[in-house]
C-alpha cells in the first residue's frame, strides 16, 4: 500500500535558550492516518518533539533549530506561526492551564472564533461534536468544576473543532483514572478511524497499545528504539525496567503480599466518622470506621469527587470531622492537634516548597530543634538529595522536587504520610522509585496512605486497598497475588 508522509523530520536538532533539554539528530517520518506513540524517560525530549509539530517550537519556545521539519510537505519555517492550529490540534496534560476560557462552550468554540469561522458554522460543529463525544450536558458548565476526565474530553473536543488532520497530545492521561483513560482511548480510536494522524507522548502505554501503529522510544534527546505493538508486548520485565518503561499491558505484580494485619500495631483509626469539606458543607463520606497499622501502606481509590482528598485532609487535621472520632495511637485527637503529626504530599510539589535552598527547606520551622541538622543530613542522603543541598528547590527536576517534599515530611517524624497521586505523570523508572521509597518509609514504621488511580503503584507498593463510593467505604481488600485481578477490575470499572 502506498503511504503518504504527513510529517518528516530530517536530522533535526534543537536546543532551548533557557533549558538543558534538547533534541539530537532526530529522523522521523509519520504517515497519514498513523498513530505514533512517543515514550521514554522524563526529560528525554518527548515534549520537545511534540512542540515541533504544533508550531510552539520555534515560534513560542525559542532556541537553536537545525535540520528540516516538514508538515504536509511544507517546511515549518514557511508556515505562518498562527496557522498551525488549523491543521494541528493540540491536547496538553494540565487542564488548569490549557483552558483559556471559563465556560465549556466557549472553550470548544475558541479556535473557531480565533480563525474567524462563521458563528453559525461553529454552533453547528459544536452541536455535532458534543453529541458525538457525549458531553452536550457539559456545555454551560464552568471548566474548573469538571472532573479530570471531563476536562480531557473537553480538551479533545476543543482540538477537534477546526477538523485538523494531525493531533498532537502531550501526556493526556496523566491526571485520569483508569475509567477515564479507557474513554480517552475510545475517543482516540474514533479519531484514527476518521483517518487523522495522531502523535502522542505518553508514559502510560497499556491504553494506547491497541491503537498504536508504532512506539518510538526516546532517550536523552535521541530516538533510540522503535517497536510495533507486538514487539513491545514481547519485551521482558527486565527490558521494560532497563528502558524505564511502564507495563504495556495491565497485569498484577505478584511480588507483593499484603501484610498480616492482625500483627500490626494500630496507629490511626477512625470510628464512625462523618466527613465534609467544611463545617456547614454537605457530607461526602458517612459513617466511616477503619484503622491503619504501623508501617502499613494503604491505597485509597474511588470515582472522581467521591471525597478521597477530603478524607485525607480531614485525617491531617486541615478539616474538622463533622462527627465521630479519629484516634492516634489509641487516643482520640482533635483536628488542630493532628496537624503536624501527619504529612500530606500534594500532587504538585510547587505548592509545598517555600525556601531558597534544599537544605533550608528541611530546617524550616525546625530552627530551634536540637539535632535537626544531623537528621536533615541523613534524610537528604537517604533520598539522594544531599548533593543538591545548596540548590534552589525550583531548579530541581520533578522527581527530585517530589522526593524533597517527602523529606520535608520525614523531618517532622510523622505518624502518617498521605500521598496524593504520587505517580501521575511519572515514567516507569520514577514510578518504581516511588514504590521503593514508599516501602522504605513503611519498613521504618511510618504509616502510609496513598490516594491513587495507578494500578502499578497499588500492586507494587500497597498492602491494602480501600474503595470509596457513594459516601461509603465499599471495599477493604488486602492486596495479594490472588486478589490482584479483583483489585485491578475495581480500579478499571470504579464499581464494586
Amino acid at each position, binding site marked *: 500500500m502506498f503511504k503518504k508522509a504527513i510529517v518528516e523530520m530530517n536530522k533535526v536538532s534543537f536546543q532551548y535558550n533557557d533549558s538543558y533539554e534538547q533534541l539530537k539528530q532526530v529522523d522521523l517520518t509519520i504517515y497519514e492516518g498513523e498513530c505514533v506513540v512517543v515514550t521514554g524517560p522524563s526529560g528525554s525530549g518527548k515534549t520537545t518533539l511534540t512542540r515541533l509539530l504544533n508550531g510552539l517550537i520555534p515560534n513560542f519556545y525559542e532556541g537553536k533549530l537545525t535540520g528540516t521539519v516538514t508538515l504536509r510537505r511544507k517546511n515549518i519555517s514557511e508556515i505562518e506561526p498562527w496557522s498551525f492550529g488549523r491543521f494541528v490540534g493540540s491536547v496538553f496534560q494540565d487542564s488548569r492551564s490549557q483552558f483559556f476560557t471559563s465556560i465549556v462552550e466557549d472553550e470548544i468554540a475558541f479556535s473557531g472564533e480565533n480563525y474567524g469561522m462563521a458563528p453559525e458554522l461553529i454552533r453547528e460543529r459544536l452541536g455535532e461534536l458534543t453529541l458525538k463525544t457525549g458531553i452536550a450536558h457539559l456545555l454551560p458548565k464552568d471548566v474548573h468544576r469538571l472532573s479530570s476526565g471531563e476536562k480531557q474530553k473537553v480538551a479533545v473536543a476543543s482540538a477537534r473543532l*477546526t477538523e485538523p488532520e494531525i493531533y498532537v497530545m502531550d501526556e493526556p492521561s496523566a491526571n485520569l483514572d483508569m475509567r477515564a483513560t479507557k474513554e480517552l482511548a475510545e475517543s482516540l480510536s474514533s479519531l484514527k478511524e476518521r483517518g487523522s494522524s495522531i502523535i502522542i507522548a505518553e508514559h502510560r502505554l497499556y491504553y494506547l497499545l491497541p491503537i498504536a501503529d508504532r512506539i518510538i522510544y526516546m532517550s536523552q534527546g535521541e530516538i533510540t528504539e522503535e517497536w510495533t505493538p507486538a514487539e513491545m508486548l514481547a519485551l521482558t520485565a527486565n527490558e521494560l525496567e532497563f528502558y524505564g518503561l511502564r507495563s504495556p499491558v495491565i497485569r498484577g505484580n505478584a511480588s507483593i503480599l499484603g501484610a498480616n494485619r492482625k500483627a500490626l500495631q494500630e496507629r490511626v483509626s477512625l470510628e464512625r466518622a462523618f466527613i465534609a469539606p467544611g463545617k456547614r458543607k454537605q457530607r461526602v463520606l458517612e459513617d466511616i470506621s477503619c484503622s491503619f497499622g504501623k508501617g502499613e501502606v494503604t491505597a485509597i481509590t474511588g470515582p472522581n469527587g467521591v471525597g478521597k482528598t477530603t478524607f485525607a485532609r480531614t485525617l491531617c487535621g486541615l478539616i474538622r470531622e463533622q462527627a465521630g472520632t479519629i484516634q492516634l495511637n489509641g487516643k482520640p485527637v482533635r483536628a488542630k492537634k493532628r496537624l503536624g503529626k501527619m504529612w500530606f504530599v500534594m500532587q504538585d510539589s510547587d505548592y509545598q516548597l517555600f525556601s531558597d535552598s534544599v537544605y533550608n527547606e528541611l530546617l524550616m520551622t525546625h530552627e530551634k530543634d536540637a539535632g535537626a541538622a544531623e537528621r536533615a543530613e541523613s534524610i537528604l542522603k537517604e533520598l539522594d538529595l544531599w548533593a543538591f543541598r545548596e540548590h534552589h528547590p525550583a531548579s530541581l527536576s520533578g522527581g527530585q522536587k517530589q522526593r524533597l517534599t517527602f523529606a520535608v515530611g520525614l523531618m517532622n517524624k510523622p505518624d502518617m504520610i498521605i500521598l496524593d497521586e504520587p505517580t501521575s505523570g511519572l515514567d516507569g523508572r520514577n514510578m518504581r522509585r516511588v514504590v521503593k521509597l514508599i516501602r522504605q518509609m513503611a519498613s521504618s514504621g511510618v504509616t502510609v496512605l496513598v490516594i491513587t488511580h495507578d494500578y502499578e503503584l497499588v500492586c507494587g507498593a500497597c498492602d491494602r486497598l480501600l474503595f470509596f463510593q457513594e459516601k461509603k467505604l465499599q471495599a477493604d481488600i488486602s492486596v495479594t497475588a490472588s486478589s490482584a485481578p479483583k483489585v485491578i477490575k475495581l480500579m478499571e470499572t470504579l464499581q464494586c
Partner: protein
Amino acid sequence: MRAIFDPRTQLLVVLIASGAVFLVDLSKLWQIIAFMAVYLIVQGMHRLAIRYLVIAAFLIVFQEILVRVGSSFFSSLSFLAYLGLRFLPVLMGAGSLGRVPSGKLIAALTALRLPRGLLISLAVSFRFLPIMRLEYEAIQTSAQLRGVSVTSPRNWLRPLRTFEYTIVPLLMRSLKISDELAASATTKGIDYPGQKTSIHTISFGLQDIIVLVAYTGWLVVVFQYGG
C-alpha cells in the same frame, strides 16, 4: 428573573462608579453603594451584594468610631477604611463583570474596537483571577501543614516571612501557568491576524438603557439633593 446586561454596559457602570466615588461627598457615598447593591441584585448576585453591604456597614461604623476617638494613632487606620469605602462601589461593579464568561467578554471588547494586544491581555487577566484564587488556596493548605500559614495568629508576628511563604510559591506557579496558558492559546490561533468571530451575539438592549438611565438619574439626585 434576572437581568443580563451587555458587558459593555457593565464596563461603563464600573467607569462611572470610579469617577463618582471620587467626586461625591463621603457622607453621601452610601447612596452609591446602595445603588450598586441593587444593580448586583437585579443580576441575581444576592450573595455578592450582601457581602459587600456587610463590608460597607462595617467600614462606615469603623470610620465613625475612629472619627469620634480622634487619636492620631488611629488616623492611618482611618485612612485605610476611607480608601476601602471609596473603592467599594468600583469593586462591586467589577464583581459583576468578573462573572461574565470570558468568551462573551472578549466578544464585547472586540465590539468596542480595542487594540488586539490590550484585548488579549485584558481577557487573560480576567481569566487569571479565578486561577490565582485556586492557587492561593492550595498554597495556604500546604502552608498550614508546615505551620507557616497566614491563618494561624502566631505567624502574624513574623509578617515578612509569612508574606514570603505565600508570594514565592504563588509567583512560581503563576509563571508556569501563564506560560502554559499562552502556549495553549497559541496552538488555537489566538495570533491569527484576521477578523475574529464570536458565538455570542453582543447587543445593547432595553435593560441596558434602563440601568444606565437609572444610574445617571440616581447620580444627579445624589449630587444635587442627597444628604
